[in-house]
């Protein structure tokens, strides 16, 4: 038996047992009924299917790093499920039980990921390890993630956590502390031959530190050179090459014209065909895309062909030809085709595995949400944003995020829809520095800020009774305004160290026509400006 569920483990079953023994432990002596016994499900191990599944999971890990490796091909009878990786080196995690075998590292249960240079995208190595853990645990996998300086150490830490019964949390070995971690682990972490582990146990060498205290020559003499090699690999003493999963060929479709084409309707039709081809390519591979890039080559002069690039982004990845074409055509409406087009290319970028289809009889929370009103609304919003972004441009559709800034112009940051989470994440990291306060209550009253803030403060002529006093008359858009009431001054001033600092005394004023405006007097030169209208 190569693997078993957690229920079986609690019943006393261990991977490596003969199946008959497992049956006896769980259900008592077996009758002549054959393989199937009530309450016990026996499934034949399918090593190739496991490897395919693991490789698929490895492609999902491209979200974290492009360098992902699946453990070497396994020999028959060595199957279970795990996921692994590394940081300044790699990361590791694991799932079910284990089977006996020559090299535990060869079981197709781990992913090794070189995350060098990627961790800052998730805050730090811990953030990345946490994100990896959430990626798989959120989809129902039992996974252990460990980060260390070498693949061997990362594998050892992740697996040892299982053996020593540590909680299923991501483990991160700080740079330079790999050997300290290793010394505390059981010798199984070195992925030695089972016979060697047994012999060492008989000699009361249960931990790595005890083994490392033995002379290397003695280890070599008694257990062979291979054992020394495995110890060095686990300790990261030699550079272990990783055979990374190959990146897939780009999903691209292109068309070259024999003669330069300038007719927009012909080009539009050709573009439509290319988008359809790309959609078919995605469907064939079982992938969806986040972005379509349309490249147009025009030949204004023979010597210098000119490339124009249009990018169509999606809020939710898709592979549907009609949907993709709708977005591309919306964008092409606001673009002008260059003259003398000789080549068109459509390239799918951000090609990913779609969300998994339902695998259980009853719907999961996510699936339930997808069929309810909330799910419909979420998809409706995604479609709307995609359409608007395609036609108006990505920067034209945004969600506002409040910032606690002194200067009113900087109090709102516009974030592209779909990027809110990354902004919140960067806000968490930068903490007080950025002063973002997404979703929080504002720090001013209901009527103290104008609904329309002018693009820049506009200078106005103001009459005041006393110098530095409140305004009593002003002219705005060729209309003379008499101030009936005012509130202020509200002083808004940045520190002297701030670049482009301001020093303003703001007044809310009510005119005799019942209108409200937001004026300020610039301290220093006492010039007046209107900055907003309480529409």
């Amino acid at each position, binding site marked *: 038996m190569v693997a078993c569920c957690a229920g079986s483990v609690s019943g006393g079953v261990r991977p490596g047992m003969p199946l008959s023994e497992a049956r006896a432990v769980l259900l008592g002596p077996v009758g002549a009924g054959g393989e199937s016994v009530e309450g016990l499900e026996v499934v034949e191990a399918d090593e190739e299917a496991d490897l395919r599944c693991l490789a698929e999971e490895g492609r999902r890990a491209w979200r974290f790093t492009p360098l992902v490796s699946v453990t070497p091909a396994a020999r028959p009878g060595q199957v279970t499920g795990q996921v692994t990786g590394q940081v300044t080196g790699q990361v590791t995690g694991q799932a079910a039980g284990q089977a006996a075998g020559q090299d535990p590292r060869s079981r197709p249960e781990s992913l090794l990921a070189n995350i060098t240079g990627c961790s800052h995208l998730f805050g730090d190595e811990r953030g990345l390890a946490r994100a990896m853990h959430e990626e798989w645990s959120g989809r129902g996998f039992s996974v252990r993630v460990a980060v260390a300086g070498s693949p061997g150490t990362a594998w050892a830490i992740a697996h040892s956590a299982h053996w020593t019964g540590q909680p299923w949390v991501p483990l991160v070995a700080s740079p330079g502390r790999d050997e300290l971690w290793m010394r505390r682990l059981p010798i199984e972490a070195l992925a030695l031959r089972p016979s060697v582990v047994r012999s060492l146990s008989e000699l009361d060498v249960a931990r790595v530190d005890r083994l490392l205290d033995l002379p290397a020559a003695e280890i070599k003499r008694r257990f062979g050179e291979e054992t020394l090699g495995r110890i060095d690999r686990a300790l990261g003493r030699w550079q272990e090459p990783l055979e990374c999963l190959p990146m897939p060929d780009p999903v691209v479709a292109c068309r070259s014209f024999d003669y330069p084409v300038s007719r927009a309707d012909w080009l539009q039709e050709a573009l439509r065909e290319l988008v359809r081809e790309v959609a078919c390519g995605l469907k064939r591979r079982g992938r969806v895309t986040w972005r379509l890039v349309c490249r147009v080559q025009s030949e204004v002069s023979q010597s210098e062909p000119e490339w124009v690039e249009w990018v169509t982004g999606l809020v939710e990845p898709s592979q549907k030809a009609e949907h993709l074409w709708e977005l591309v055509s919306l964008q092409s409406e606001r673009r002008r085709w260059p003259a003398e087009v000789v080549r068109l290319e459509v390239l799918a970028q951000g090609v990913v595995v779609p969300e998994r289809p339902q695998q259980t009889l009853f719907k999961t929370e996510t699936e339930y949400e997808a069929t309810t009103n909330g799910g419909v609304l979420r998809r409706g919003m995604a479609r709307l944003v995609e*359409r608007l972004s395609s*036609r*108006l441009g990505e920067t034209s559709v945004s969600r506002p995020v409040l910032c606690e800034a002194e200067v009113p112009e900087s109090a709102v940051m516009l974030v592209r829809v779909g990027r809110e989470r990354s902004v919140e994440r960067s806000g968490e990291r930068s903490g007080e520095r950025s002063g973002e306060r997404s*979703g929080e209550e504002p720090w001013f009253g209901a009527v103290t800020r*104008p609904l329309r*803030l002018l693009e820049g403060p506009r200078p106005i002529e103001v009459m005041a009774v006393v110098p530095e006093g409140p305004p009593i008359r002003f002219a705005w858009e060729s209309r003379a305004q008499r101030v009936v009431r005012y509130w202020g001054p509200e002083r808004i001033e940045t520190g002297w160290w701030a670049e482009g600092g301001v020093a303003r005394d703001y007044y809310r004023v009510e005119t005799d026509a019942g209108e409200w405006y937001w004026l300020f007097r610039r301290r220093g030169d006492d010039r007046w400006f209107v900055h907003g*209208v309480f529409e």
Partner: protein
Amino acid sequence: MLEWINGEGPGSGAATLALLSAGGLIRRQDSGPAGTLAVVDRSGGFYTAAAAGLGLSPEGILLVRARSEGEWQWAMEQVLRSPAIDVALTWAGSLDDRVFRRWQLAAELGGGVGMLVRSSEVMGQASWASTRLMVRGCVGEEWAGGRRWRVRVLSGGVGRGAWRAGYQEREVMLELNDETGGLRLLPRLERTVPPGVSATG
């Protein structure tokens, strides 16, 4: 479709009242998360911080910027047509009758509410809005904080059943409290008391 018309200049406060009512419409969905307000803004001056001051969460606001007249009309129609948008708000000067009609049909299809903030110059023009409201700021009244308006129903009905406003109730006075952010309908007695005299005599 609902029209909020500024009685005087742009600072009369029609957009403020439109946003307050939009906030009420969004929050009314008790069973689920708050809805979404789409603001289709041509000039690019919509100040979300002020909207937040009026009680609208920035997370529930979708901001759409349109550069040209054509893009603006198209964008407004799209947001009105989308079932994911509960309220669509825009500022509209004079508007082609056919565009207005398209918006109205789009709003019916999407099931949301479309709000237009307009100037008093459009008073004589035909409208496809179900309700037209004129907003005038109250000048120089004797109260400390907040803001008061007179809102007049120019066309369409307001309220339901017994609460539906009668002919004599077609103008009401509203007060926005600066400290609490609450909007309240002022009773008739309070409205008729001359400045400087308390309601209790």
